[in-house]
């Protein structure tokens, strides 16, 4: 192989990769582009099949967004999501931080298996558990309230975050704690005073993912909640805004976009850690 053909081949590969990236970005991001353009179009423009749908055939409008915030419960749903999110984050941290640390520091053949077993409970889907839960929630008297979600959501955030935090604590050298313990701290003291302060990044990751999981959840929300004022955003938009024969496409697309993009931006910052959690030790 001459240097010239080698260079030509490298260039061809580079161009090929570039084309693949463009293709997939267009394919994957298209629905969000479509939400964006729909959210700002006037109804007259939107509902005229003669118009080119990719363009603004009439000047853009803020009408749909005004309708969304003024005439629907969208703000309430956002607030509900935040309320549930904050409480679930608190419960998750209280349970998952100590558990993750114990799993990271335990020795013996069972530690790893126990960790995986806890992670696997994250994979038990809501679609297996939602029917018994609907009755449990009714018997506890919290049906149709946000408290039902606060109670049930940790059932998947705790396993996930325990696993995530276990991985994180394993990266913190034991020597740090050993030194602290020689200086007279107990194991628990070393954990609270030495390990916790340098683990804020890991804990922040757990917070972000708990919040993301809460925002994404749909099945339990649609099962437990029946009054529209108690919906979270991922349940409210598809069930309430579609109900009836009139679809408010402009407002719906605006709602989807507003609820999706901020989470995606934050999530993107932490995605590597998330992947590390998902690859179950298959990558070393």
């Amino acid at each position: 192989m001459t240097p010239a053909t080698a260079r030509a081949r490298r260039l061809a590969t580079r161009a090929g990769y570039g084309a693949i990236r463009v293709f997939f970005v267009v394919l994957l991001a298209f629905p969000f582009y479509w939400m964006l353009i729909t959210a700002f179009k006037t109804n007259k423009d939107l509902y005229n099949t003669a118009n080119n749908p990719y363009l603004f055939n009439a000047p853009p409008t803020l009408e749909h967004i005004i309708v969304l915030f003024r005439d629907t419960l969208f703000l309430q749903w956002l607030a509900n999501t935040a309320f549930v999110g904050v409480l679930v984050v608190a419960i998750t941290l209280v349970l998952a931080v100590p558990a993750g640390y114990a799993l990271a520091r335990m020795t013996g053949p069972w530690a790893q298996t126990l960790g995986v077993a806890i992670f696997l409970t994250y994979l038990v889907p809501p679609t297996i558990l939602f029917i018994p839960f609907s009755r449990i929630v009714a018997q506890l008297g919290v049906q149709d309230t946000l408290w039902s979600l606060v109670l049930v959501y940790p059932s998947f955030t705790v396993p996930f975050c325990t696993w995530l935090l276990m991985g994180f604590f394993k990266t913190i050298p034991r020597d740090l704690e050993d030194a602290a313990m020689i200086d007279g701290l107990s194991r628990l003291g070393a954990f609270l005073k030495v390990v916790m302060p340098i683990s804020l990044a890991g804990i922040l990751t757990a917070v972000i993912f708990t919040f993301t999981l809460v925002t994404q959840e749909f099945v339990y929300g649609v099962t437990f909640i029946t009054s529209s004022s108690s919906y979270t955003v991922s349940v409210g938009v598809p069930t309430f805004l579609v109900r009836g024969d009139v679809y408010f496409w402009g407002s719906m697309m605006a709602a989807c976009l507003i609820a999706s993009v901020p989470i995606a931006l934050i999530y993107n910052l932490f995605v590597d850690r998330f992947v590390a959690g998902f690859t179950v030790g298959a990558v070393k």
Partner: protein
Amino acid sequence: MIALPAGGKGRARWSFVDNERRLWPAMLAPAILYIALLVGVPFVLSLFYSVSNATVGSRSIQFVGLENFRRIVESGTFWLSLKNTVLITVVSQFLVIVCANILALALTGEFRGKWLVRFLILLPWVAPISLGSIGWLWIFDSIYSVINWTARAVGLLGPHEWPIWLGEPTLAKTSIIIVNVWRIVPLATVIILAGLSSIPQDIHDAAQVDGAGFWRHYFEITGPLIMPITLVALLFGIIFTFTDMIVVFVLTRGGPYDTTQVIASWAYFTGIQGGDLAGGAAISLFLFPVLAIVAVVFLLFAKRAEVT
């Protein structure tokens, strides 16, 4: 916060936190208890409901043996749902693995705008799927579908052709598969990407020196090395697609005439909307075998990772 042990009573109180054999269980117990109560108990209840006559309205529950399962297996909708679930999962996950491998390869190395590209690619996975599906509902709209408009504009559709994406069984299933592929590709891509970046550069260099071309390099070196991680991506994809009801719920509600019903959505419509808790529980249990198989494979993986 934590007073240092100062002998006497304090010593005795804090000696327990130095005893790791008691400390670890104490730190694990709350999490395990919560999980047992909120995953274990409902699961057992679900088994119990499936052999009972529980309904939303009535408080009394009686044991009815395998009656619910007999009812389910005799119903045509069940076989249709099972077939749809398997079809949607197999086809979508095959496409996901192909697409994700290609895309992951194209994302290795440095290029301009990497951050933005990654953000845009991850959007379908991060955005709540119920909202993403709403976006697709609009794209598949019977009158204003942008797909149809574009196809007609470039001459793929004749003047009298106008497919109703969600109104015809085959097209509706295709639509559901498209949305599932769209949703899982980002996850599979980032997982496989992690595998690709863990291959030492030496191996690639050695192949280069030996004169391996692109295809040989891929199929004899890169491909086999990322096999395990591709399997991990596949397992997650299977779980998330097989047990999902959201895409079907938002796009078709199982219609037209239950032809796009999947196990999970049918369990919802039977158990929650229909009030037949026992029937719904029995239906949803058909999701369990796949879940169990995936769990076993994961445990084997973890064992292997521990040994190496």
